[in-house]
């Protein structure tokens, strides 16, 4: 199965339960709900004042975080869905294609589909008077780098999922939570305790969010990340993502061996 076929399959599985319009609405409501939650929190604290750098910072960070959240939420589910719901994991495994490549394809399509929600959030941002200053070239870099690290992280998670039981839908969201907390997505890194910032700077997402702000708001207002040049915030996450992809591939090989050794390819763990 080619990358294109697995992307197509992802779209079919994701969208074939309903009409395309309803599908788009479903995909949009969740991210819009998350954005409104944050905006409401902001509104309550500022006593109704809706503006300033903080609002732009949190709104844009949160909007782009949806790409991570929606993709990882799906990735947290796909292995268990293949294994226990449709019970096709074993058949996919014995087919000549690589399951690793298959997951890349499905994750990539999920990433693309999440783009709809992002577009809607960006448009909604105009209503909140978010001062956009879009650098289109950097925006392209945002998507390329973003895709690389989200797929890398997603594949790592899929490897883990092959060894674990099905625990509902929280798995991918939980991993997304790491990025949400530590990457300066909705608040500056300087708010985090000093010792945590070290972890933050090791995450590709931290640089990615900085890149997002430079691409969408025209500058980096976050003190810690402002010390890095734009080239650095492109290259660092790209390099880390490559390492992540390599690691996920290596871990996948290990997991592949373990699942076959322990006979976990067709286990059902529902409770």
């Amino acid at each position, binding site marked *: 199965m080619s990358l294109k076929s697995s992307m197509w399959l992802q779209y079919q599985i994701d969208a074939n339960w309903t009409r395309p319009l309803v599908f788009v609405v479903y995909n949009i409501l969740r991210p819009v709900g998350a954005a409104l939650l944050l905006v409401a929190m902001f509104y309550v604290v500022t006593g109704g004042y809706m503006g300033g750098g903080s609002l732009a910072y949190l709104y844009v960070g949160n909007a782009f975080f949806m790409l991570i959240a929606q993709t990882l939420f799906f990735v947290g589910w796909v292995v268990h869905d293949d294994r226990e719901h449709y019970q096709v994991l074993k058949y996919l495994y014995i087919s000549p294609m690589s399951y690793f490549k298959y997951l890349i394809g499905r994750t990539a399509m999920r990433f693309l589909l999440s783009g709809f929600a992002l577009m809607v959030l960006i448009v909604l941002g105009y209503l909140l008077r978010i001062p956009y200053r879009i650098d289109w070239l950097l925006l392209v870099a945002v998507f390329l780098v973003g895709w690389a690290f989200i797929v890398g992280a997603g594949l790592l998670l899929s490897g883990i999922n092959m060894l674990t*039981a099905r625990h509902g839908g929280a798995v991918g969201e939980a991993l997304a939570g790491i990025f949400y907390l530590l990457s300066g997505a909705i608040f500056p890194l300087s708010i985090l305790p000093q010792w945590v910032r070290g972890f933050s700077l090791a995450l590709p997402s931290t640089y990615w969010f900085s890149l997002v702000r430079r691409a969408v708001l025209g500058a980096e207002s976050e003190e810690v990340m402002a010390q890095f040049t734009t080239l650095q915030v492109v290259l660092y996450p790209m390099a880390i993502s490559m390492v992540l992809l390599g690691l996920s591939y290596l871990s996948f090989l290990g997991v592949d061996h373990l699942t076959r050794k322990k*006979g976990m390819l067709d*286990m*059902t*763990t*529902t*409770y």
Partner: protein
Amino acid sequence: MPGVYSIESRSLTRTFKSKGEVVEALKEVDLSVRQGELFGLLGPNGAGKTTLIKIFTTLLLPTSGYAKVAGHDVAKEVKQIRPIINMVTGGEHSGYGLLTVRENLWMFSQFYGIPGKVAKERIDSLIDRMRITHLADRKIRTLSTGERQRVNIIRAFMTGPKIVFLDEPTLGLDVETSRLIRRYVKEWLEQDGERTVLLTTHYMMEADELCDRIAIINDGEIVALGTPRELKKRIQDETAIGMEISPEIDLGWLDGTKGVMGYSAKEEGGMLSARVVMEDDSAVSDVLSGVTARGGRIISFYKDEPTLEDVFVKLTGRGLE
């Protein structure tokens, strides 16, 4: 329940609608199963056996006609029926993978309100009877297909049902497990005259060996009903031959051969094993010469005692498997 059939249906019809198409899964089925009987429904895949079982087990409503279990209407009296029935399906994957065999069985026993101590005793006794004592504390997800089906049998019988529905219970199982299950079902029936079993299968040997009476079902219709002996008697005037042919050839031409009522064929060890039912001996030479003319070499040829499969072939023109 004197005078009442354990399982009964009259003019039972069930249709399914899918994308504007109406499929008639059961057509005017009349069935009467007596208390103490082991009644078999023999038919190929898609004949309507599972639909019938689903109706009797209260999972599906009839489209028209009625079905009764222990004298109770399946459409209206589910509360009276459910405590006294249970079911096993072939290839079933019930239960929760993270629980052990014993825990899964205990859980299901609770859905029938069996007190803990009684449930434990019954589970232990049946685990022993099904020869899976060594698996009792293993997680169910680690069991093989055959081991799992033994657990399913325990699940159904431990609740003390009066009527058990077995839907292809030995599907895909090894000889030993199949034999164990058949023997148990037979013994269980013999222990109490008020018990009844309805078994569906497409294994004619199983039906022949186990069942007191058999209904042959094809395309949603009961095409014959009787004891295995009665059914086989139906073709005593006909001729059944068996042959092994090499290499494999297409036997479709038999459909239009004069005197041939039907045939079944399956591939076995690179050869074609075929059974042909004919009106009388006169068609034998045409069949043999037809095979040879089409490039088939007849490795062995024998005239056989009629089997249930031959009955089926005669009635439907095709084989069971």
